[in-house]
């Protein structure tokens, strides 16, 4: 029961770690460049979840001064994550642009095939 209790209280952190590992793994092991980018996004998302859940308080309200509200959610992580999302979007967009270029030049988006093509050209 204690374990379940603990799992329950840390569920966000847990999920974010799991997501992080999934993203990390996808990024490292998949050959398809698009999947790599997806992995990157999953990883980023897990981090956003982690960050936001740090500042989250059960029953807290959006941090706008209003009468009758006592508990506010910590706004700092949310604000930061907004920036983080923007960064992630730009990273993704840029990565996609690179993939487009790679596809134009190599005709494939498989990392192994690209390396094979390269080494053949060098040899």
């Amino acid at each position, binding site marked *: 029961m204690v374990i379940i209790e603990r799992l329950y209280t840390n569920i966000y952190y847990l999920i974010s770690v799991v997501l992080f590992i999934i993203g990390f793994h996808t990024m490292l092991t998949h050959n398809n460049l698009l999947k790599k980018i997806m992995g990157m996004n999953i990883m980023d998302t897990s981090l956003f979840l982690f960050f936001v859940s740090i500042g989250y308080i059960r029953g807290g309200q959006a941090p*706008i001064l209003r009468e009758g509200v006592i508990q506010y959610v910590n706004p700092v992580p949310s604000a930061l994550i907004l920036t983080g999302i923007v960064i992630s979007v730009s990273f993704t967009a840029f990565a996609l*642009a690179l993939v487009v270029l790679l596809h134009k030049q190599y005709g494939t988006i498989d990392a192994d095939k690209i390396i094979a093509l390269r080494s053949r050209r060098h040899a």
Partner: protein
Amino acid sequence: MHDMILEMLGRILIPATQLFGAYILFHGHLSPGGGFSGGTIIGASFIFYSLVYRFSDKKHRLKHETSLWFEVGGALIYVGSGLVGILFGRHFLTNQGVFPIGEPGRLWSSGMILLVTLGIGAKVAGTVFKLFQELLEGGAEPDGHH
């Protein structure tokens, strides 16, 4: 090529989206929302617009320069309003004492925050649309000879 359904939907949805985006943009300091979210929504409406007309129509096509101006203008507004603080002998991005602060809760209520939000909104809208544009048509030539 025109798509009737898309066009009709666009006619209804684009103004509504833009209005919604503008609402979020202008109320950034009063309610959840702000430059990033509002800008993204407006940018999305631009994207929708170009999807509707499929880039085929020269007349309806948004120019690269336009989105560039959006982007650059937004950034300039941000940095510029930051520099105003220094001009007034305060710190960079100083709000209090430099910009007039109205009543709390009103639209004009928090000095330059609205200005900055607008800048960010323009920048983000421009960027989102530009990303879309570049991904569709941009990119260097295949073998790098130029």
